[in-house]
């Protein structure tokens, strides 16, 4: 009896002790997880869905803000629910080093027509970002610097039935790369393809699974315009079918654009773009400088290779003196010969803009500007400072100009429809040495001309050509937006009729209008069965 009791109590004790073991607290890993994915593979498959925005809610939230209302008017009432997935994938850096990056995969769903089944896909490249935490997938944080562009993508494309794949780019968000390969055509084209390949692996595993119709569209704004065009070039070279492309307000002809800047036509934002570009090309080619003070003024040189992207917004970096606001070049000419372009004058309305690009101290030292200009004069670009051939420089020697030529896109011809969109008065990415130059390069009598009817060029800052102008509404809308910006500035006390406010806002204001035009362009191509 006692032995039985002893056994049963011992059993109870054993049960209790067994139950005492194990602390709990680590949930299982579901799906496939690979922390060192190969290029084009997902870190996490299926990727997590950050949010599922039903069409009614999206419409209501757009209506709740002024910018939202503008976007709603341009993009139209959301038709489809939008699922936002966060993808992380293997890719490469600017020196072909293996790395990881992140991005967004937006998929439409819902019962409205054109929201399910086989959908067309837009592979989108975003504009210059300076904050490391930039993440197009972070719909839970409206303060994320990517928030505006992400809303635009959701409203313009995903809510109207397109799948959207958009990388954040290597060097941003959770990417393991310690810098950003800015305006590196080879790297950005490779990364876009890796993001697309990774997203395609996710499609069948999503909560609302969706499939592709086989129609692939490329689009991108500003830096993203360069990325989109470089991607189109790479895909075409690889024999991959691209349905149509819409690069927008991009620095396509980098040699021409770079030369224009060094000749004193300093663009707005140059003190952000130039250090990112120098760092990118130094990482890729290794020969832009031996030490930072070779190219940068001592006031800014220290740490300039690691300052962007930054945890802080660029406004803080400028306020704390880590970056100049606008002074790219020194107000003392590097040589008397260059006095007349330090700054250039007689350019009309842009005189004031270019003057801002000069100061003391400046970001770039005079030795660099002088050496660059010497090479630009000895081995000139075919479009800057004067139009000769319109082509890239034949044999640049200065390492910065060599690098720019490597990434200049005047060296191929698309065989599918392309819409080049921009604003002719863009102070940030000049229209003339980029969009207009590519237009000339791809039009007869250029030997690199595109096939008839394949190229469409849209300047949203121009008057409608008549009642048959497909882009009349976009142009009218942009004109209205410009007036609104100027009026708001004057109402807030501006005495220059709002000109300065308009200059500051111009480049970002063009963006949604060009995207609306791009979507219309894509839908036309789809309808025509091209």
């Amino acid at each position, binding site marked *: 009896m006692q032995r039985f009791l002893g056994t049963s109590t011992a059993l109870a004790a054993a049960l*209790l002790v067994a139950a005492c073991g194990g*602390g*709990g*607290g680590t949930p*299982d890993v*579901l799906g496939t997880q690979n922390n060192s994915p190969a290029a084009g593979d997902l870190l996490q498959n299926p990727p997590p869905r950050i949010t599922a*925005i039903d069409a009614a809610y999206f419409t209501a939230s757009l209506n709740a803000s002024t910018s939202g209302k503008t976007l709603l008017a341009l993009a139209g009432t959301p038709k489809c629910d939008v699922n936002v997935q966060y993808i992380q994938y293997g890719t490469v850096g600017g020196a072909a080093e293996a790395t990881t990056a992140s991005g967004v995969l937006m998929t439409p769903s819902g019962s409205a027509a054109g929201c399910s089944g086989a959908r067309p896909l837009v592979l989108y490249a975003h504009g210059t970002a300076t904050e490391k935490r930039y993440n197009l997938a972070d719909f839970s*944080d409206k303060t994320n610097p990517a928030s505006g562009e992400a809303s635009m993508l959701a409203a313009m494309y995903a809510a109207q039935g397109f799948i959207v794949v958009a990388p954040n780019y290597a060097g941003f968000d959770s990417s393991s790369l310690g810098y950003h390969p800015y305006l590196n055509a080879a790297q950005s084209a490779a990364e876009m393809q890796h993001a697309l390949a990774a997203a395609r692996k996710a499609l069948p595993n999503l909560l609302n699974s969706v499939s592709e119709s086989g129609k692939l569209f490329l689009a991108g704004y500003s830096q993203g315009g360069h990325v989109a065009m470089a991607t189109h070039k790479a895909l075409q070279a690889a024999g991959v079918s691209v349905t149509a492309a819409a690069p927008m307000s991009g620095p396509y002809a980098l040699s021409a654009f770079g030369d224009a800047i060094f000749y004193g036509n300093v663009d707005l934002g140059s003190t952000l773009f130039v250090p990112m570009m120098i760092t990118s090309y130094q990482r890729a080619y290794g020969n832009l400088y031996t030490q930072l003070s070779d190219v940068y003024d001592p006031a800014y040189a220290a740490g300039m290779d690691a300052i962007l992207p930054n945890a802080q917004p660029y406004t803080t970096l400028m306020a704390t003196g880590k970056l100049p606001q606008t002074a790219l070049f020194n107000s003392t000419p590097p040589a008397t010969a260059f006095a007349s372009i330090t700054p250039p004058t007689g350019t009309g309305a842009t005189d004031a803009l270019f003057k801002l690009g000069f100061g003391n101290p400046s970001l770039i030292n005079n030795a660099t500007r002088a050496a660059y200009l010497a090479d630009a004069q000895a081995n000139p670009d075919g479009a800057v400072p004067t139009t000769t051939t319109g082509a890239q420089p034949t044999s640049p020697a200065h390492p910065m100009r060599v690098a720019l030529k490597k990434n200049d896109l005047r060296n191929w011809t698309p065989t599918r429809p392309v819409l080049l969109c921009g604003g002719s008065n863009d102070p940030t990415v000049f229209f003339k040495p980029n969009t207009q130059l590519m237009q000339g390069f791809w039009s007869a009598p250029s030997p690199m001309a595109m096939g008839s009817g394949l190229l469409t060029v849209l300047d949203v800052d121009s008057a409608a050509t008549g009642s048959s102008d497909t882009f009349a509404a976009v142009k009218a809308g942009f004109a209205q937006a410009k007036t609104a910006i100027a009026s708001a500035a004057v109402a807030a006390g501006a005495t220059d009729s709002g000109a300065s406010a308009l200059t500051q806002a111009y480049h970002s204001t063009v963006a949604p209008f060009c995207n609306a035009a791009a979507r219309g362009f894509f839908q036309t191509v789809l309808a025509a069965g091209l």
Partner: protein
Amino acid sequence: MKHLHTLTLACAALGMALPAAAQYTVKVGYGDVRPYSSASDVSGPFTPAGLSLEVHNQQTVLFSVSRPLNARWDLELVLGAPPKHDVALKISPAAVVPNAARALDGQTGAQVTQIAPTLFFNYNFADASAKWRPFVGAGLNYTKFSPADSTAQGDALNGGRTSLSLEDSMGLAAQAGVSYRFNDKWSLTAGVATADVKTKLTTNTNGIIRKADITFHPIVVSLMVGYTF
């Protein structure tokens, strides 16, 4: 580790040899478990504020085995057939979430099974021979939450298939009740028990790790038939 030590000693105490007159009472009956959970907001990447949860009530079969230590004190181990509780999603009116997510408010987002062995030292206000024997007890509760599974609604709110894990809990417990003695062998006991239970919930949704702290002030009402031998 300290807790484990204490519990092992208590377990050993239960099996301690006693004079031949020692009696064991085995009880089985009905338990109504009300967790009265209080959870923090769920936190983690990409997680808006205002999302929480609530653990719902459940009923189960309770068991206990007790042994007197002397005329008034006894040692009792209480266990239940592990009840499976529904965990409801709570979406605060202030939470900024799309309509599709808000529609999940109040729905069952997970189901969690708990096993909660509790050891009591009870003081009885009358001797073992009395017809009515009220008692109060204090002791130690150990709760293990397993298995813990997400539902389709939980997956929908989290944005993918979700795995859950909850930390074990160790805390003080207390009870009060009364036994009615039919005869030497049979009795009926009604009691109310509570314990200090808390846990940390961790979820993993395709790599997104989210956490919430959950505190319980549970009330377990029981009615058990006892057999003494």
